[in-house]
C-alpha cells in the first residue's frame, strides 16, 4: 500500500475511529485487496503483541505516598504576613507583651505542628482503608513482616504477634509521613483496622497519650528512640491496651 493517506485510514479503522460509511468502504476494499488485508492482519498482530506485553509502569507505593504528602503540604494555608505600622509609644508595651507571649507562643507552635501531624496520620489511615492499599506485605507472621522492611527502611520496626491478646497482625506497608519514611504495621481487632505508624526520633521517651481526631482515636508514645502512633476507630481503652502490649 503506497498511499500514505490510505495507510492512515487503515489504522483509524483498526482503532474504531472511522465513521460508518468510511469503514464500510474500507471493508469492501479489504475484501478485494490482499495487500491491505495482510497489512491489517499484521497491525492486529502488533497490537496483540503490545497489549500482551503489559507495558504499563506502576508507581511504587513510596512514590504514591510522597505525592500525597506533598499535596497535603501544598494544601496547608500559607502564613499571611501583615505589615502594620506600630506607634512609637507602644514599643515598651510591645517588649513587655513579647516577653509574656513568647512562652505561650512556643506552646502554640508545638501544638500546631503536632495537630498537623495528627491530621496527616488521620488522612493516611483513612486512605489506607479506602484505596484498598492497606498492606504491601500481607501476612499474620511477624517473621515475614519484619524482614520485608529490611532494605526498604533505615530502621527495623517493631512487629509483634499479638493474636493471643486479640490483636491480629495483618501486615505492613511503607509510608511517608511528617517528612520521613515510616513503617505502618497493620493490626486488626474484630472488624477494626489499626495502623501503627513508627519511625526513629531523637526525642526522649514519652508515655502514651490519647488524642481524638475526626472520629478516630490516636495513641502516641515514644520509646527507645522510636516514635509510635496507633490509630483506629477502635475505642480508646482497647487502643491503649494495644499500646501497652507493644511497649512491653
Amino acid at each position, binding site marked *: 500500500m503506497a498511499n500514505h493517506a490510505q495507510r*492512515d485510514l487503515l489504522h483509524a479503522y483498526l482503532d474504531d475511529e472511522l465513521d460508518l460509511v468510511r469503514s464500510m468502504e474500507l471493508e469492501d476494499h479489504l475484501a478485494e485487496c490482499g495487500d491491505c488485508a*495482510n497489512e491489517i492482519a499484521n497491525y492486529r498482530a502488533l497490537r496483540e503483541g503490545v497489549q500482551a*506485553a503489559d507495558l504499563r509502569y506502576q508507581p511504587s507505593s513510596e512514590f504514591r505516598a510522597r505525592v500525597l504528602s506533598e*499535596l497535603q503540604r*501544598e494544601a496547608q*494555608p500559607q502564613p499571611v504576613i501583615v505589615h502594620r505600622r506600630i506607634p512609637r509609644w507602644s514599643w515598651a508595651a510591645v517588649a513587655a507583651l513579647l516577653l509574656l507571649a513568647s512562652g505561650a507562643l512556643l506552646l502554640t507552635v508545638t501544638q500546631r505542628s503536632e495537630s498537623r501531624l495528627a491530621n496527616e496520620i488521620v488522612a493516611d489511615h483513612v486512605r489506607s482503608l479506602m484505596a484498598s492499599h492497606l498492606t504491601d506485605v500481607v501476612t499474620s507472621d511477624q517473621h515475614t513482616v519484619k524482614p520485608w522492611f529490611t532494605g526498604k527502611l533505615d530502621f527495623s520496626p517493631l512487629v509483634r504477634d499479638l493474636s493471643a491478646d486479640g490483636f491480629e497482625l495483618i501486615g505492613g506497608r511503607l509510608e511517608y509521613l511528617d517528612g520521613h519514611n515510616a513503617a505502618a504495621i497493620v493490626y486488626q481487632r474484630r472488624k477494626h483496622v489499626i495502623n501503627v505508624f513508627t519511625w526513629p526520633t531523637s526525642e526522649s521517651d514519652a508515655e502514651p497519650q490519647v488524642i481524638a481526631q475526626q472520629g478516630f482515636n490516636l495513641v502516641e508514645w515514644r520509646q527507645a528512640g522510636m516514635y509510635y502512633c496507633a490509630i483506629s476507630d477502635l475505642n480508646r481503652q482497647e487502643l491503649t491496651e494495644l499500646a501497652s502490649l507493644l511497649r512491653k
Partner: protein
Amino acid sequence: MEKSADSGQKLRRFEAVVLPHLDSAYNLARWMTRNTTDGEDIAQEAMMRAFRFFDTFRGEDARTWLLTIVRNTYLTWVHRQAPLQNSAEFDERLHTDIDSALTPESDFLRRATAEQVRRAIENLPVEFREVILMRELEQLSYKEIAAVTRSPLGTVMSRISRGRSMLREFIVGQKRREAKQHG
C-alpha cells in the same frame, strides 16, 4: 480559618477527581523520560501543578486534563536539559522496509517478547512514542490524544500510523536477526 477549610475541601475534591489518574500520569512520564527517577520527578511535579491549577479545571475529562499537564511538564523539563536528549531522529537506514515475501510477519509480531516490544517503543522518537502510548496503553481516542498533544486530528492519525509502522519494522527486524542467528 476559612481559607484552610477551603484548601482542605480542594484537596478532598482533588483526591477524588484527579488522584485516581496518578497511575496514568506516572506511566506516561515514565515512558517519556525512559527512567524511573525522572519519571517520578515529572509525575510528581505534574501532580503539584495540577493541584495548583485545579481551580481552572472545568470538569472536562480529568485524565486527559492531567496527561496534558504531564506532557507540558515533560516538555519544560526537556528544555531545561541539554538539547542532546530525545532529539534523536529515527534512522531510516537501521529500519529498512521489510521484505514481506519471507516468514509470515504477523507471527513475528504476535510472538514478540515483552522486552522486545518495550525496547521498540523506547526506541521511538518521542513525538511518536507519546501517541502510541496514549493509544495502546491508555486507550485514549484520537480526539483525546489531539487534545493532550494540542495537535490536529490529522497529525494524530498520521503519527499513530507512522509510529506503528516503525514499531513493526523494529520488532520484525529483531526477530529476523534472531531467526538468522538460530538458523
